[in-house]
Structures are given as C-alpha cells and as structure tokens.
C-alpha cells in the first residue's frame, strides 16, 4: 500500500474533547502542498502516514479517520470513526475525522485487502459507499469500516513484531501503543512500515459483545466547531477571485423564461453579467419533463445574475424585468391533482390499479358482510425545508473543475458536475462541506448542475445561492398520496377482510422507472403491501400511479412518512368500531412472533398507556417499520375547549437491533419526532397556477421550541443479526400517534393532514 495520488482535499475536525483542547476547523495547508493547489483551502496538511485509504497516522500518533458519509447532523463524523477506532485500538482522544476524497474514490477501486477479507467486491470504488441516505450510514458501512481498522491494527502489530523479532500474536495494540515483552512503541512509529505489509489472511472483525468503544455516548467531534461559527457549510465557502450568483427559474416546473431585460440593471454597482439558464441558454442538459435524465437534474429555464456580492446580484435579479410562460401546467392546482387521484381511488375497477398484495378474497367477503367500515386518507406534497438554503460553489477551467457543496451523494455530484463541465470525472474535484440538513433533498444535485453550468460560462469561481423562496419553489417534493380503506368484521368485532387502495405520485416513476415492478413503486407501498404488520384472513392492497408536473423526491423516511399515518389511523378506526383498546386490537392482529409486538409493548408500558383519560386529553399509539428499524410511539395530547392542540409527550420505543452510540440515537429520535410533528401539524405545499404557494417560513411553518413535547426514547433492541437504520424510522409513527391521540381526546378522526386545517373546538 502506498500514498500515491494523495489528493487530500479534506475537511478535518479534531478529536480533542470538550475540556478545552484546541479545536481546528480547516488545517492550514503546508507550503509545499499549497503551491500545487492554491485554490483549495480544503486540504489537510497532516504529514501523516496512510496505512490504508481509511486512515492515516501522524508521528505524534494523531489518527485521521476518513468519513465516506456526509455530516448533516446525524453524527457520522463521530459514529463512523468510532467503528474504525474500535478495531484499530488507538486512543480515541487522538482521533480526527476528515471527509474521504471523492475524486480519489471515483478514480480508484477498493484496496485488495478489503476484497480478501470479504468486505468488498473487486469492482467497488475505493470508499465503497459514499451516498448518505436510506438510514444506512452505520448499518451499511459498519463491516468495511471495522475491517479497515482491524486490518490496519494487524499490520501495525506485524511491523512491530518483525522489528522486535517476536510473533505478531505476542504484540499487544492498545490505546495507540504497541508492546511485546520489554518493547513498546507508538502506532505512529510503525505506521510507515505497516503500510508496506501484506498479511496472509485478514483479521476477523469484532462481534458486538467484544465492543469497548462502541456503545459509549462519546462527545461529538464536530460540536466545538458548531458553537463558534467556524464549521463551514457550502454556503460559507469562499475561494479566491470568487463572485456571486443569484438565480430565479420558472416558478412552474417546466415553464419558460420568455424574456428578461438585463440592460435595466447592468449599470448597478458590482454587476458582472447575466446568463439565461436552461433551454436556449447555458447548460448541456436543460429541464424537460418528458426525458428521464432531463427531469432529474436538468436545468430549469431561468436567469442568473452575477455580481461582486450576493446582495448586489440578488437585488439586480429582483429588479430586473422578466416575463414567464407557465407552459402547459399553468392551471394545475393541488386540488386538481388530488381530486384526480380521488376519482381513481373511488373506482376499484379502474384498470390502472395494480395488485400489490392479495390473500383470500377481499371483495366477496366485504360484499357479503353487514359490518363494514370505510375511510379515505389524504397526505399533501411537502418540501424538505433544509435549514441551509440550497447553494453550490464551482470553478471550471479547461482541464479541471472544482465544486464545493454540502451534498448527500458526493460521487453523484461529481458525475453531474463532470457532465456539465464536459470533463472526465477524474478531472473533477468535489469538496464536501458540512450540510445544514439534507433530509434527502441533497441527494438530487440539481443545484450542482446549475452552478457548474454558470461557472463554466463565467470562467471564474462563483458561489450560487438560492433564496429561501427559490429553495422552496424549486423543491423536489415528498409526493402527495391518497388512500382508501374498507374492512369488514364479524358480529363479535373480529376483522375478516382488509382492502386498501392507494393512488399517489410515484418517485420511482419520476426518476427511476426501471425499478418499477409491474407498475408498483416499492417505496410508495412501504408498510402497505406484504410489509403490512397486521394479518387478516382476507387482505388486499392495490396501487395506481397519478403523477403531476412537480418533481418528487426522497424525503426523510420516504413512503413510510405518509403511509403509517393512513394505516395506523385506519387500524385505530377498526379498533374503535370493534369496541377494542387500540393497543390490544393491534396485538390481536399481529402474529405471535411479530417483531412489532415488543416495541408496542415497551412504548405502552413506558408511557403508562391508557385509553381512558379525561375529556380533552388523549393517548394515541402507532407503530411502523422503516429501513430495518421498528419504532412504536405513544403520544399524549391535550386539546382545549377552544380547539388548541398541544402535544405533551411522545414515548418512542425503538428496535434497531444494536446501537453503537446511544445518545446519537436518542437525539435522532427526538429530531425525527420534531420533523414528523412539524409535518403533521403544519406541513402542506399548495400549488396554484402550477407553482408552489408557500415559499418561506411565514407560510411554510416549522415547529418551534415553545411547542416541543417531552420526547423519551426507550430501547426495545432485539440484537442478533438485526442492524437497522436510525436516521428516519421515528418519523412515520409521529403523525398517527398524534391523530389517534386527538381522536381519543376529542372524538374527531383526522383523515387528512395537516392538523392545522382541522377545527378541534369541542
């Protein structure tokens, strides 16, 4: 192994503790390195020795561990280095975290030892998995990160064994120190020798019972940077000779900028230029709804104004006369979209329904029954509302492109930039920053394409910043969905048949139609098809796609984010119709060995579950699975006579199998309760004349501190082979736990979100 092609444009945080150690944001490049890449402050001049692609050890024993996932609040800059350090057996206080180099990842395949250990395929790229999504950071990189640490540790031991003339098995590696008999040395002393060693067999990684570091709630490595303004997000990037761009594109996706009058603003101070974007303007891939590639990241028709400061660019953009043509979708509204779906939903014989799951004979069972219930549920489009408005900085020259962006998928961002810069990927350098949240939005890379096109046209570095309004209007939305349920019960209240029809805007149909399976979108059917936890003798789920012109995208917990609201609401309705306790009713529908039972029981026990509270007070329960993790929640709400709803507490029981950092999991659960509650109470994107109505926080409301419930996380861990994700699965149960609690408190059944549209007065 060697350190060739080390292009360490990385981003480093120190492992020094909260006790007041020196906290570093970006390392100052050494002179020698800086000469080669003057434009790049993102380089760690550590002078360490790389043992393998994942880690480098300096003479002073500082260990820089590279992180292949993006830090957007979930804690990967702490959790993932812990996985490596657990095996490496270095001293945790010596650990620094740095982003892995995306350019190096796309240029190189994985190191041979990883393949030999069975932790990678030969065709994998160097860092194996660099997209952050699907709640996969720990569960999907755990094995290869542990292997990187273990394989490095054994090489250090072998290097010391060779030098000391002892067997590797006799060398101990603990807290960054190698020792055998009377010999002892630091990891740093043997790092160079270790990098040259080949082992006959790669070591096995630890099993959870052997963990010593994992399982501890260690302080986050990034916190010290996030309390003094030094943490750098994409929007904070400043590179030499950089100018600023403000952009406005068609408020109706697919609409067109007819004309703009740059002459009216070009003489204002600091104005450098303007470009037409998309069709008839700059960019190699203009937006077009009909073509798959064009609709995913294609550049919407619009205009960019360039100036020497962002405010000057923005002011000129806003003052500049512009004329838009909304195009063929100019009279679409959210109402027209949802009414179209409801028409389909009302007709079970609509030929566009595809069967997603079927057991027994639902139709005739329901038709023969005189004890049936029916309900229709509706969830709206939502925007991600990333705290950091979208932005991207780019610099494109004839033979190199640099892009600075907070992205959830650096290799994909690099590929998009390469395509737009018309350069081979090897010549594109992607510098990942901290993200001011992502929630899925920053997997899309449309801002990367737009910024790269502008930088290429301009020929100098440019920072493109979208206003909050532009960020919301150019959202890639969580789809709307509509659901119809019908069920029949026997005379004693035992359910006999359950039939669910779903009509929604399909993310897969929009951007990955090759993965539709017989017209079924797997993410749209999360928890609804055979994945429904409950069992009925007769059970059927049908699905039909009804898209609109809006671009749709993954939104934290994706299909489960809305499906659980509908299913868990309707199950509650069935419980009520059967005169049963909502918890008992659920348990009665779950198989004996169902993994859903324990989380439900733990949440209920910890919350002091009761369906018998006074008027104006209620508890609701709900459970859902997402990304391999099951979360059950009990919400306690109060509703005043005047209809004021307050969510007092949420008890969440989580089964993600194992946990490596309990506090990060608790923080994630709390974060997801806030996210789910925000959507349940307020979340709704209206469409009028084809365009988004709510474009800023005065209309698109967010939960605030005065509305924060008590959130308690309870472990319901099943261990074993189960490793579930923790970035999203506590979102889905929030809405139904609350709406079920509202029903218990008021007798009002909420079948359409958000709650703010409902009158809860007594």
């Amino acid at each position: 192994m060697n350190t060739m092609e080390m292009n360490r444009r990385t981003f480093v945080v120190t492992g020094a503790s909260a006790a007041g150690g020196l906290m570093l944001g970006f390392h100052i490049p050494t002179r020698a390195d800086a000469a080669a890449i003057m434009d790049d402050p993102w380089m760690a001049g550590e002078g360490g020795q790389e043992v393998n692609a994942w880690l480098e050890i300096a003479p002073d024993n500082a260990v820089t561990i590279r992180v292949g996932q993006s830090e957007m609040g979930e804690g990967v800059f702490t959790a993932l280095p812990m996985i490596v350090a657990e095996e490496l057996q270095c001293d945790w206080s010596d650990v620094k975290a740095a982003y892995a180099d995306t350019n190096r990842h796309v240029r190189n395949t994985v190191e041979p030892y990883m393949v030999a250990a069975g932790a990678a395929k030969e065709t994998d790229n160097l860092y194996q998995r660099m997209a952050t999504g699907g709640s996969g950071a720990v569960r999907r990189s755990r094995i290869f990160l542990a292997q990187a640490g273990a394989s490095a540790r054994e090489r250090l031991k072998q290097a010391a064994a060779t030098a000391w003339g002892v067997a590797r098995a006799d060398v101990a590696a603990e807290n960054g120190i190698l020792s055998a008999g009377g010999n002892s040395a630091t990891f740093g002393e043997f790092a160079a020798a270790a990098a040259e060693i080949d082992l006959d067999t790669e070591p096995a990684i630890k099993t959870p019972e052997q963990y010593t570091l994992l399982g501890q709630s260690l302080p986050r490595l990034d916190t010290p940077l996030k309390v003094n303004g030094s943490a750098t997000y994409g929007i904070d990037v400043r590179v030499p000779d950089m100018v600023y761009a403000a952009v406005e594109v068609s408020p109706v996706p697919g609409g067109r900028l007819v004309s703009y009058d740059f002459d009216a603003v070009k003489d204002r101070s600091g104005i450098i230029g303007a470009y037409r974007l998309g069709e008839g303007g700059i960019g190699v891939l203009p937006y077009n709804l009909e073509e798959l590639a064009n609709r995913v990241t294609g550049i919407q028709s619009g205009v960019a104004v360039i100036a020497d400061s962002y405010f000057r660019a923005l002011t000129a953009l806003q003052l500049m006369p512009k004329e838009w043509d909304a195009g063929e979708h100019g009279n679409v509204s959210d109402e027209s979209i949802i009414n179209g779906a409801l028409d389909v939903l009302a007709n079970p014989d609509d030929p566009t329904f595809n069967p997603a799951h079927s057991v027994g004979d639902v139709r005739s069972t329901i038709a023969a029954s005189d004890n049936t219930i029916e309900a229709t549920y509706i969830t709206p489009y939502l925007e991600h509302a990333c705290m950091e408005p979208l932005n991207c900085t780019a610099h494109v020259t004839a033979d190199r492109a640099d892009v600075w962006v907070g992205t959830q998928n650096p290799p994909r961002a690099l590929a998009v930039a390469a395509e737009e810069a018309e350069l081979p990927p090897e010549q594109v350098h992607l510098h990942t920053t901290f993200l001011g949240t992502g929630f899925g939005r920053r997997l899309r890379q449309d801002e990367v394409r737009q910024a790269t096109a502008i930088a290429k046209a301009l020929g100098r570095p440019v920072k493109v910043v979208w206003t909050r309004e532009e960020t919301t209007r150019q959202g890639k939305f969580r789809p709307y969905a509509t659901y119809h349920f019908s069920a029949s019960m026997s005379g004693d209240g035992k359910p006999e048949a359950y039939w669910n029809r779903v009509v929604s805007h399909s993310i897969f149909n929009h951007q990955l139609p090759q993965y539709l399976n017989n017209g079924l979108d797997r993410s749209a059917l999360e928890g609804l098809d055979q994945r429904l936890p409950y069992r009925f003798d007769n059970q059927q789920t049908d699905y039909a796609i009804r898209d609109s012109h809006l671009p749709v995208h993954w939104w934290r917990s994706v299909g489960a984010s809305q499906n659980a609201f509908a299913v868990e609401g309707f199950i509650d309705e069935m419980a009520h119709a059967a005169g049963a306790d909502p918890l008992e009713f659920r348990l009665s529908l779950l198989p004996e060995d169902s993994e859903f039972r324990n989380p439900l029981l733990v949440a209920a026990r910890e919350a002091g579950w009761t369906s018998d509270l006074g008027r104006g007070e209620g508890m609701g329960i709900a459970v859902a699975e997402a990304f391999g993790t099951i979360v059950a929640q009990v919400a306690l709400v109060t509703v005043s006579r005047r209809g004021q709803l307050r969510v007092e507490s949420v008890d969440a029981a989580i089964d993600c199998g194992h946990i490596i950092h309990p506090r990060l999991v608790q923080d994630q659960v709390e974060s997801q309760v806030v996210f789910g509650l925000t959507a349940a109470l307020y979340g709704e994107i209206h469409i009028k004349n084809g365009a988004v109505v709510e474009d800023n926080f005065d209309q698109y409301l967010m939960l605030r501190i005065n509305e924060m419930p008590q959130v308690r996380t309870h472990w319901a861990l099943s261990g074993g082979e189960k490793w579930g994700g923790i970035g999203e699965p506590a979102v889905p149960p929030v809405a139904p736990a609350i709406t079920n609690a509202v029903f218990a408190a008021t007798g009002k059944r909420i079948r359409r979100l958000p709650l703010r549209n409902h009158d809860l007065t007594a």
Partner: protein
Amino acid sequence: MAISLTINGASHTVDVEPETPLLWVLRDTVGLTGTKYGCGIAKCGACTVLVDDRKAFSCTTKVSAVVGKDVTTIEGLSDDNSHPLQVAWIEQDVPQCGYCQSGQIMAAAALLSQRPDPSDLDIDAAMSDNICRCGTYSRIRSAIHRAAEIAKG
C-alpha cells in the same frame, strides 16, 4: 459608499449600499460566515446577532442602522469556546447539523443578558423566533439553564 462599523470590538470600513442587510455585509464583505442566512424575512433566527447587546435579525437590519453601534456575532463570543453558552452547548452536545446554532446561541446570549436566570417560559418566549430544523430544542433549553448556572459561577 464607505460605512464604518464596529464588529466584535473591531472597526471595519465597508463599501456597500446603505440598504444592504447587515447579514450580507458580515458574511460576504467582512468574511464572518458564522452568522447564517435562513429566510431573509425575520422568520427563522439563523441570522441573529447582538446590536448593543440586544438581539437583532441581521437579515432585515440595514447596515446603515448599526453605524455607531456595537455588533456582536457568534465569532465575538469568545476566542476559545469559553463563553458560558459555548461551554454549556459543548457539554450537552446541543448541535446536530449546527446550521441554526449560531443564531440560537446569540438569541440565548441576548436572553441571558436580560434575564440571568430564565424560566422555561422565558426561554419559550425568547427562543421561539429561532427554528431548529434538526429539532435540538430540548437540549437548547437545558443548555441555557446550564449556561445560566455556569455564569453565576
């Protein structure tokens, strides 16, 4: 137009239009990027700074309005993370993505300068201008109480 400002105790002369929001002067002209842009309409608190020790939304404060006043940004709280709010924030690992936290901490600083020992209701009232999309609210609350304790010594 040349405008003289005092930011974190240091004098700066900037050449910008007087109606430029303080936010963009801090971030783009002076280079203090700790103060964040979130909404531009005084609805998220990400841009919160202190002007003469009182909380201000820098996105809707014209630069001309702070001439002759003391502006304090997150970078001005301390040189070494030693401000009681920073100590408490680190102790409780408050931030997740961290994007809102400069604004949260500056809003909390304004609160503590008015009410050294705030109640939960004081915190609700003072901090509900600040959105945290990561939902760190319960730790923000406990860290403010903790900072009040540290400040008392």
